[in-house]
């Protein structure tokens, strides 16, 4: 094992040189990290589209270089997507949804630099931690993942939904209603089990179901742009200049909350192991965990608490390490981007499975190093450019809103099906989202319900078909059931407590001055 780790180090730092000045594998890792940052920041594009774009170019490359390029891209995608999430409340990808809740209020308060600094640092620490977890857990996790069947996966997804009660403030029932609405919207289209078209009403657009990107952009981005236009100022309602500082404060915040970073990193890496749960579920899990465990979080989360940025950002980067475990060890891609990575690996004649832990172990370690290096490099780049990025929040909103709205329309089509129906979904969900925001209904549960709907549908169907209702007595199912009950119970109990602000006095005073 040590020989393999050293051999991988030699591959990264001692291989053939790229353009004569940098080892090829290292160079392609950094190039991938840079591409991942840019594509991650463009809403609706993200890691899957990015990998799809570079896929044909990797076929003629050296296997190690191709893998390093792909891993580099994956490592920073969840770092780049933070920029539109914090500045404009537009999730660059699913994984950035939870970051909006506290990151965007911070930007509005003039702390965009601090939020971005904290997010980049937490992302890097989480990503490195995920790589570490991947390195340590491969021999341990194999029997655990194999012990999970459909009933256990179903219950795990339900556990994710139970977090919604916690995420819905003093109206947990509203959170659950909206989550079930999301589950229902997720059933539109062809039933994956029977092939029957459900709620398609003969419309070809609906045969494949409602696409996620137009729905997410409509739910969050359009309402935010409308409200900013109603308010009529810049995103940060503070004098120019003050939003541009604070990145180092954010970095310190991340290190000050090191235990939260580690806990969220563990959550990300472990949930990342479960195929199909994806970045958004990981982020919400980490966010919910921080909410339940951090002191005073119930009063400050959702209003611009930096810990609400740190937890999901650490988790969604560390999940890439977790995602790699089933992809490499079992050949089961844990996400769409991992499926594309798998195709790159297979094209180069590397077969995933037990060989990745034995004969191909050095390749696995090369991936681990590339993951860690890409994360650190991405963070350094972001911190260097953070001041320029944060300047966007001080631009008057009206011209910016015009550009963002046009970009949102185009992104909805790029991330959707490239049909007019995408725009109909975007605007319809925009209207629903804006009404929900104004009338006090939480929107995140709708999105999470929608995302996990196909997964829950499939596991529910298989569980009932295979076991009848006997699966409810499986030991692991019972353990997760207890966790669900505890989550909802603690959530409701915690939400009844009277609010007591722990926002630092100076922040409150500054907010009041604006």
């Amino acid at each position: 094992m040590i020989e393999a780790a050293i051999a991988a180090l030699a591959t990264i730092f001692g291989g053939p040189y790229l353009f004569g000045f940098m080892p090829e594998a290292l160079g392609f890792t950094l190039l991938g990290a840079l591409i991942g940052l840019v594509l991650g920041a463009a809403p609706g594009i993200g890691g899957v589209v990015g990998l799809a774009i570079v896929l044909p170019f990797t076929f003629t490359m050296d296997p190690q270089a191709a893998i390093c390029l792909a891993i580099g891209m994956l490592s920073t995608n969840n770092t780049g997507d933070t920029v539109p999430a914090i500045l404009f409340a537009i999730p660059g990808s699913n994984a950035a949804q939870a970051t909006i809740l506290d990151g965007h209020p911070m930007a509005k308060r003039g702390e965009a630099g601090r939020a971005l600094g904290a997010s980049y640092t937490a992302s890097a620490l989480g990503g490195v931690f995920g790589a570490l977890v991947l390195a340590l857990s491969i021999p341990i996790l194999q029997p655990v993942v194999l012990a999970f069947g459909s009933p256990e996966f179903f219950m795990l997804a339900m556990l994710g939904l139970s977090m919604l009660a916690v995420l819905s403030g003093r109206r947990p029932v509203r959170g659950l209603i909206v989550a079930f609405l999301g589950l229902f919207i997720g059933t539109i289209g062809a039933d994956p089990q029977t092939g029957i078209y459900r709620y398609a009403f003969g419309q070809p657009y609906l045969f494949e179901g409602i696409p996620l990107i137009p729905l997410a952009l409509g739910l969050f981005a359009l309402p935010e742009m409308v409200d900013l236009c109603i308010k009529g100022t810049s995103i940060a309602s503070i004098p120019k200049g003050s939003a541009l500082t604070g990145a180092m404060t954010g970095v310190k915040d991340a290190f000050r909350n090191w235990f939260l970073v580690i806990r969220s990193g563990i959550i990300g890496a472990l949930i990342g192991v479960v195929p199909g749960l994806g970045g958004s579920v990981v982020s919400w899990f980490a966010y919910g965990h921080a909410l339940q465990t951090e002191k005073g979080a119930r009063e400050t989360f959702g209003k611009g608490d930096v810990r609400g940025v740190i937890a999901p950002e650490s988790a969604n980067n560390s999940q890439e390490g977790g995602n790699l475990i089933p992809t490499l060890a079992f050949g089961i891609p844990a996400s769409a981007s991992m499926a594309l990575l798998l195709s790159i690996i297979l094209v180069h004649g590397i077969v995933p499975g037990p060989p990745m832990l034995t004969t191909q172990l050095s390749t696995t370690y090369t991936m681990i190093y590339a993951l860690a290096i890409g994360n650190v490099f991405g963070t350094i780049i972001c911190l260097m450019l953070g001041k320029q990025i944060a300047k966007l929040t001080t631009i008057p909103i009206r011209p910016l809103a015009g550009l963002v709205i046009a970009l949102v329309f185009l992104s909805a089509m790029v991330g959707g099906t490239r049909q007019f129906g995408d725009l109909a979904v975007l605007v319809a969900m925009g209207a629903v989202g804006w009404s929900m925001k104004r009338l006090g209904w939480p929107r995140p549960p709708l999105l999470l319900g929608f995302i996990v709907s196909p997964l829950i549908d499939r596991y529910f169907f298989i569980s009932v078909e295979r076991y009848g209702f006997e699966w409810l007595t499986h030991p692991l199912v019972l353990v997760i059931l207890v966790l669900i009950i505890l989550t909802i119970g603690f959530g409701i109990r915690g939400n009844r407590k009277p609010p007591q602000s722990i926002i630092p006095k100076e922040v409150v005073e500054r907010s009041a001055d604006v």
Partner: protein
Amino acid sequence: MSDGSSSRIMRAAPSWTLGLFFLAIFVAALVVAFGFPQRARLFPMFVISVGILLVLAEIVIAMIWPPAADADTGLDLKADDDYGFAEAFREGLPIFAWIGGLIVGIWLIGTTLAVPLWLVSYFTVMVGGSPLATAATVAGFLVLTVGLFDYLLQVPWPGGEIPGIHEWAQALLQTLGI
């Protein structure tokens, strides 16, 4: 009905409005689901039934414990102005109209033509920008979108309902060398 209970119901009304909207969706979906084969309706029926029960529970809860004026959206983003729903809707009408204009424009004349035209109109009317600044912004946006989406991602934008206009726009872009 006493004044107290009357005002309580009035305060709960916004919750009712959206709750009733969701209830209507669930009920309609339930009716449709009865037309599906048994195996295909298993999951939708489960989801919809629970959804209906939850909405009914929420309406009862909203009647008994009406939400405060600054209704708690949990951990969602909150509107940071003091407008009520109707007032915010009135204030937002211009931007709603612009968004509506963009979608109607794309529907009629296609994306390639509608988006730049919309941007020119928006920057001239809504922002009051100078012709030079407007032209530079729109040109920059076009380079980004056409370059990124059209050339790199090869995204076929949907054409408009007016026949021939999308093809005309594509030909114009080619003539201009974009």
